[in-house]
C-alpha cells in the first residue's frame, strides 16, 4: 500500500499543548530542517541523523516506518523511548494513543490492528536542564547496524542527575528497551564518571542480556554498552552545562 500520497498531511513537526508531535511520514531529512536539530535539548535527533543509513536514504525513510519495522536497529525507536513517546494510531473506527513501549512488543511485532495506521508520534517537550544524546559504533562509520546503540535523555540540577532515561538497541528482548534499574540507581546521585561506572558495573549487567551472533560476542556488546552509556551521558551533560 503506497502512502506517499499522504505525505503532505503526515509530514510535520509541531508543538501542541506542551508536546512535540512528529507526523509518521516525516523523514530524517525533513527533521533536519526543523528546530529539533538545533535546540540543544533535542540534539539526540541530530546524533541519529549523522549515523542514519546514508544520504540517499535520509529523504526516503520515515519515522513511522522506523518504528513500525520494530527491530533493534530502529534508531528513532530507541531514542523516542527515552522521550517517553506515545503513538497515535488511526483507523476507520477512530483513534487511540498508546505508549511506544506498549506498542512495540517484540521484534517485528506491534500491538496494533493491521488496519490501524501509525499517524504521529508525540512526546512531552523537554524543560530546561534537559538534553539528549545518541551513539552508534560499528566497524565502519556509516551504512551500519551498529554493534549496539545507546540513547539517553538527561536532566542535571546542581550537578545531580535529576532525571535520566537510558535506552539501548536491546535490553532483554529483541527490540529497543530502557535500562530502568540503572536509571533508578542513577537518579538523584551526583553526576560523575565514578557514579556512572558504579552504575554500569554493579547494576546494569543484571538487567541487560547481551547475546553473541556472527557480528559480535555478547561480552563485547556488554562492555561496549557500558562505554556508550558513559559517553552519551557525558555528551548530554556537556550539552546541558556547556551548550555543546
Amino acid at each position: 500500500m503506497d502512502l506517499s500520497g499522504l505525505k503532505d498531511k503526515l509530514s510535520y513537526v509541531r508543538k501542541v499543548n506542551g508536546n512535540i508531535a512528529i507526523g509518521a511520514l516525516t523523514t530524517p531529512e525533513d527533521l533536519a530542517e526543523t528546530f529539533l536539530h538545533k535546540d540543544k535539548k533535542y540534539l539526540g535527533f541530530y546524533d541519529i541523523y549523522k549515523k542514519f543509513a546514508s544520504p540517499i536514504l535520509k529523504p526516503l525513510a520515515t519515522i513511522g516506518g522506523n518504528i513500525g519495522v520494530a527491530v533493534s536497529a530502529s534508531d528513532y525507536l530507541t531514542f523516542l523511548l527515552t522521550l517517553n513517546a506515545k503513538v497515535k494510531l488511526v483507523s476507520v473506527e477512530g483513534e487511540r494513543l498508546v505508549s511506544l513501549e506498549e506498542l512495540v512488543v517484540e521484534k517485528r511485532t506491534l500491538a496494533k490492528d493491521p488496519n490501524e495506521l501509525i499517524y504521529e508520534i508525540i512526546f512531552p517537550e523537554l524543560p530546561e536542564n534537559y538534553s539528549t544524546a545518541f551513539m552508534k559504533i560499528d566497524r565502519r562509520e556509516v551504512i551500519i547496524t551498529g554493534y549496539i546503540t545507546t540513547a539517553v535523555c538527561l536532566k542535571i540540577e546542581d550537578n545531580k542527575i535529576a532525571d535520566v532515561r537510558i535506552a539501548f538497541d536491546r535490553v532483554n528482548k529483541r527490540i529497543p528497551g530502557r535500562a530502568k534499574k540503572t536509571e533508578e540507581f542513577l537518579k538523584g546521585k551526583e553526576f560523575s564518571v565514578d557514579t556512572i561506572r558504579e552504575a554500569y558495573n554493579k547494576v546494569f549487567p543484571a538487567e541487560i542480556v547481551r547475546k553473541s551472533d556472527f557480528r559480535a560476542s555478547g561480552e563485547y556488546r556488554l562492555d561496549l554498552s557500558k562505554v556508550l552509556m558513559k559517553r552519551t551521558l557525558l555528551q548530554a551533560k556537556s550539552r546541558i552545562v556547556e551548550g555543546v
Partner: protein
Amino acid sequence: MALSTAEYVRIIEELFEKVKKFTYVGKHMQRWDAIEKILGKARFTADYANLYRNLVYVYSVRAKYAHAKIRKIDVSEAEKVSGVLKVITPKDIPGVNDVGYVIPDQPLLAYSKVRYIGDTVALIVAEDPYIAEEAGEKVYVDYEPLPVIIDPLEIVDPVTLEEKKHVLIHDERESDIVARYRIRTGDVKKGFEQSSVIVENEYRTQYAEHAYMEPEAALAIPEPDGGITIIASTQCPYEARRAISKVLGMPFNKVRVVAPPLGGGFGGKEDVANEIGAKAAIATLLTGRPAIAVHTREESIIGHSKRHPAIMWYKHGATRDGKLVAVEARIILDTGAYASLGPFVAWRATVHSVGPYKVPNAKVDTVTVYTNGVYAGAFRGFGNPQIHFAVEQQMDLLAEELGMDPVEFRLKNILRNGDRTVHRQLLDHGVGLEEALVKAAEAADWYRKRAEYAKQTGTVRRGIGVALLWHGNSIGAEGADYSAVSIIINRDGSITFRTGLTDMGQGAIQGLIMLAAEVLGVPPEYFRVEMPDTASVPDAGPTVASRTTAMGGNATLVAAYKLRKKLNEVAADMLKCSPDDIEIKAPEVYCRGDPARKIRWIDLIEECFWRGVSLQEYGYYRAPKARWDDEVGHGEPYFTYTFGAIMAEVVVDMETGKTYVERIVTAYDIGRVVNRVGAELHAEGGAIQGLGYALMEEIVHSPEGKVWNPNLYAYYIPTILDVPKEIISVFVEAGYIRGPFGAKGLGEPSINGIAPAIANAIANAVGVRIKSLPMTPEKVYLELKRKGLIKL
C-alpha cells in the same frame, strides 16, 4: 630455439638501455576513456540490454543446501509458467558441463550433487526477469543433504597437513586436497639451533569479497551463421571464449566474446564471467534469441569467487645481531567448493611466503583444500595479502624480541641487488626495496613518531607501523606467459590500438598508449582503443597478475618499435637524412641535424601508403620461461618482483577497540613509472581496499554453509568516512631490463602490505597484536581487556 635471444626481447632491452628522456612516459595524463565515463555514456555490460529487442532473461535456480546429493530434479511445473521459454538442466548442455578454471571440477549446472550454496541446478529462460524468478520457485529438487564442512581443519590436520577422514566434497576426485607446494632451503633445524630469538605464532585471515560496484552480467546474441557473440563482464575474453566454447561444444572461431569496460574486477571477473557467459550463451543457443543474465548483488556475493581464507603457522629464528636465520611455515588455504584459481594462489603464496628477505634456511609447506564455503579464486594479491599479514608481524615480533627498531631490523635482512631469494634466484638488478623503505620512513617521519608514541598515556593512542612487500610480476610458472597488441596507423594518420587486455578501472591501457606514443613520437590523443573482442584483437593473455604494463607494455613497445623503424626509413628517404636522425614530434617530422628539413605526419603516412609500406604491426612478447622445482621450491618463479614499503599511522580508541587510520605512506619500486596517474590511483585505491581487508571486511558462513552477509549492508567495505586524511605515494624506479623501459606492475602489490602495516601500527599504539583478520574493534578491545590494559 633459445627464447632468450628472441628479437622481441632484444628490442625491449635495447629500449631500456637507450631511452633516458621521456615526453609522455612518467607524466600525468588523462585516460583515453575519461570523457565517455564522465558523461555517463560508457557502456557497461548490463547497459547493452537497452540496445537489443526481443531479449530473453536468464535466471539461475540455486542450491538449497551447501552440500547435498541431487536425487531428482523436476522442472515440469516451472516449464508450465506462462512466459517461460525453456528450463535448462544438465542434459541440455551440448558440450562439456564444466567451467573449472584450472581443474575441471566445476559443473556449470550441478548434476549429481551441490557443493556450495551458490551452485546452480537449473536455468529459467523467460520473457521477463520477474517471470523467470517466479518460475524458478517452481523447480523442485529432491536433495539428500550431506554433512557441511566450513572449517578447513576438518579436512586437513593443522600440524601434519595430512587429509583427515570426512565425507568427501569432491568424491569424484577421491580427495579434498587440491594442491600442495613446498620450499626446502638449507636446514631449518640447524637454523633454529643457531637462533638467539625464536618467534612462533598462528595467523588467520578471512574470506573476503571483491564488492566491485558492477555486478556480473552477460548478454549473448545469436549470429546468422550459427555462431554466438557474448558480451560479458570478463577480465579475460579469450579465456571466456575457451570456457564457453567448451560448454557449447562449438569451435573457438564461432564463439565471439566482447569485453566492455568493467565496473571493477580485482580478479573477481576472471572466472565467473565464464560461468555467466556460458549461461547466457546456452540460453541463446536453445532459444535463438538474445539472452541476458545479470546477477543481483546477493547472487554476486554467493555466486562468485572470494579471497582464500588462510590459516598460517610461522616460526622465525634470528641471531642476536639481527640476522634472519630460519623460517618455517605451514599454510592452509581454503578454496571453498571449487578450485577456481586456487592451485595458482597457493603457489604464489608459497613463493612469497618468507617475505622479501634473505633467508638462508626455510621450510614451507602449503596445502589447499576444498570445503563447502563459497569457492575462492583470484582476488588482488592472490595469496600475498594473506602471507604478508603473517610474515610482517613475525618480523616486527623478532625486532621487539631483539630490542631493535623494526625498520633497522628489516634493513639488515632485505633483499638487495646481487642477493639470492629463498628459491636461490639471483636478483642481479632491479631491487629497489631499500630505497623504498628509506623513502617511506622519511615521508612518514618514522623515527620521530616512534619515539613520540612510546610515551603515551590515556585511552586514545597513536601508533605507526611498517610492512614490506614483494610481488612477482605476471603469471610465473602458472602457464605460457605472453602478450600481444596490434597497432594500426590509419591512412589519415589516426591510430587504432588493439589488445585483448581489458580495463576494469586500473587504466593500464593508458600506460600502453603512452608507451606507443613515446616510441612513435605522436601525442596519445592520436590513439583510439578498440574494445577487447576475440573477433578482432590479438590474444594478449589474461588481464591478471599485475601484468598489463609489464607484459602488454612490452608487446606494445615491440609493435611501436617496428612501426617506428619503417617510418624512419621512409622519412629518411623523403628528407634525405639518416633513419637514426629522424625526429617525430607529430604533427611534425624532421631531421634532428637540420630541423628545417621537415614534413607533416600525415604526409609521411600517405607516402607510406603509396610506397606499399604497411603500417599495421603486431607486437608479441613472451616472458622468459619460469623455472620451478616442485621438490624443493627452487628456480626462477617470476622474472621480476615489485617491491614496496608501507607505513600506516593509526589512532586506537582503547575503550571501544576501534582503529582509525590517519595516514598511509606507500613507497613502491615499480621499475619505471609509465602511467603516473594510474600508479598513484593504485597506491591510493590499494591502500583503501587494504584498509577494508584489515579492519572490517569478512564473509561469514553459517554452519550450514549459508552466507550470513550477502549484501553491502552487512559486508563492510570502506566508505569515504573511513579513509585516512592522507595517502601518500612515493615511487622508486629500480628498472628491470626486460620491462617496458624497466617498468613493473602495481595492480596487486598495492594491497599486499596494508593490513600488516596497520597490524604493526596497532601493536605500536596499544601493545597488543591481533593475529586474525579483520582486526575489528571487538578483537582489539577484548585483547586489551585480556591483557589488563583496559578496565572499564
